[in-house]
């Protein structure tokens, strides 16, 4: 028998379309890195009736699937999933475990990392392999000003959660094949101390902001809740959605659902209007996929002004009002 290949694992987070996408994105990045360390890409799938996801993961680049298929896994459970993941990782000793930074992933990964006694970097926006073969994890850090580059030099596996939408998934290739390793659920499962009483799709119109072609985003530079509220009027005229920065959400000028940034939404509109936002990295990393950015800020040196296509040096609230009036006139005709 040859020596065991160094494995990069991806957690198969399949619960809804969005999560499925981040898993595919991670498989793609894992493929690239597996090439650099001479390793293989394995996806861990825990669930019931997962055939569809397993074939998707293989078609998108998995070399191996660890599959625990059991009717008891019909719902996601933090305790059960952490237990199974720990058990499997202890047995197989992967080099790296990547988890999509969904709500579940960001809660699941720290449980697993702690159980395995290893390190974990949260919400990475880039990954790389260095000359020693270590996983380099880049994540925004400390007040949004900076990117921190982190490594896990000694403990294994090296773990990271990765923000959805950062990496490009590979195209489907349904002729690909992969080894499927069936991992039965043990009989001695610890009893779950957390019980899901009900779980329903949330009525919140979550996806609108992420899919909007036009987004009007506002920051503290709007000056007041009242002035901020005019952004809704502007968005209405433009047929767009309103986004908000974290300070604005904390000030209660906008709902939590409007948060654009780390711990909030990633947006990719065709046109982004950015009003009174200075451009902390937690925010800017989440708007980078916007095609065309028009930023309005009093401070010409604000970071957002450098990344904007059009930088308007003016009072954000005033420009918002002027733009509303101008659009009303132009649209009326």
């Amino acid at each position: 028998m040859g020596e065991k290949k160094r494995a990069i694992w991806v957690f198969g987070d399949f619960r809804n379309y969005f999560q499925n996408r981040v898993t595919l994105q991670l498989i793609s990045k894992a493929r690239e890195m597996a090439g650099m360390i001479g390793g293989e890409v394995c996806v861990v799938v825990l669930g019931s009736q997962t055939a569809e996801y397993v074939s998707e993961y293989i078609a998108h680049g998995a070399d191996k699937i660890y599959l625990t298929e059991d009717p008891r896994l019909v719902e996601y459970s933090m305790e059960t999933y952490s237990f199974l993941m720990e058990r499997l990782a202890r047995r197989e000793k992967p080099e790296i475990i990547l988890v999509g930074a969904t709500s579940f992933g960001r809660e699941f990964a720290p449980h697993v990392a702690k159980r395995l006694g290893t390190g974990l970097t949260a919400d990475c926006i880039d990954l790389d392999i260095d000359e020693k073969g270590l996983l380099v994890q880049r994540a925004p850090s400390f007040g949004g000003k900076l990117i921190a580059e982190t490594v896990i030099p000694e403990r294994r596996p090296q773990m990271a959660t990765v923000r959805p939408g950062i990496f490009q998934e590979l195209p489907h290739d349904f002729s690909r094949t992969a080894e499927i390793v069936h991992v039965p659920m043990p009989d001695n499962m610890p009893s779950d101390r957390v019980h899901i009483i009900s779980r329903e799709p949330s009525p919140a119109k979550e996806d609108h902001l992420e899919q909007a072609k036009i987004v009007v985003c506002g920051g503290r530079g709007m000056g007041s809740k009242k002035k901020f509220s005019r952004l809704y009027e502007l968005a209405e005229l433009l047929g767009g959605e309103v986004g908000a920065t974290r300070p604005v959400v904390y000030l209660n000028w906008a709902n939590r659902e409007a948060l654009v940034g780390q711990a909030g939404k990633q947006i990719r509109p065709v046109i982004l209007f950015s009003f009174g936002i200075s451009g902390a990295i937690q925010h800017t990393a989440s708007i980078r996929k916007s095609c065309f950015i028009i930023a309005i800020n009093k401070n010409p040196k604000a970071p957002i002004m450098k990344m904007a296509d059009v930088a308007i040096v003016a009072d954000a609230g005033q420009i918002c009002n002027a733009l509303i009036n101008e659009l009303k006139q132009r649209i009326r005709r």
Partner: protein
Amino acid sequence: MLKLVVCIKQVPQVSELPWDPETWHLQRELAEGMMNPACRFALEAALKIRDKIGARITAVTMGPPSAEEALREAVALGADKGILLTDRKMAGADTYTTSLTLSKVIQKIIPDFDLILCGASTIDSDTAQVGPQLAEELDIPGVAYVHELTIAGNKARIRRVADGFSETIEMELPGLVTINTTSEAPRYMSFRGFQQAFGESDIITHDAASLGLHQEWIGARGSATKIRNVYSPIAERGNLVLTGTNKKILDQLFTLFDDRIGGVVGKDLKTEKN
């Protein structure tokens, strides 16, 4: 009586952060601090439980000596007691060692706790990892991103929204929750609370030695993750700068981009002149 522990963190308030260029750690002692917003929500959730059914609340923090301010604020808001973990050897801790250190002090001082409440995430490092890892360390169940919480008997009843699902959850106690800033807004400090906090309030201090923590396990040395580099990531695009009166700015904007904006909006935005 119910015993609640609230873990809080003092975070820097300033926009310019003092860095140690050697270790890439934040020099927290140089930064002006405030209580992390989500931690205030966690404290509020604990106070709500106490108002309803009675409880004893202990606030715990780890940080530089100045983090005592956050504890005093917690006491002023209604916590019964504060525990400050401070030790230079604890500096530069990642979430792995932070959760280990917090677990040791909780096991030592409040081993019979019923519920631990943490903020879901902090505004400085924003990992959201310490809560779940503390639950693992203490071998208790944990639920993150909670926005509604009630206690009934030996169970916590929880509501939250996660990944597009609205969930109702029952968690056995003792347990741990992390509280979102979407939960009920925190209260303000009362004058009496203020007096209490800055009079003779019940704040005790611990360091690594008093907790029996070897320095190999804590701080930067004990951390599994190592920060290798920190840099500023501003991506520059060659951009167009518009200045002047509002009218001049909008005229320029529409002259140059009326097609582009109108195309996306799906409306003709040209003036007659065009």
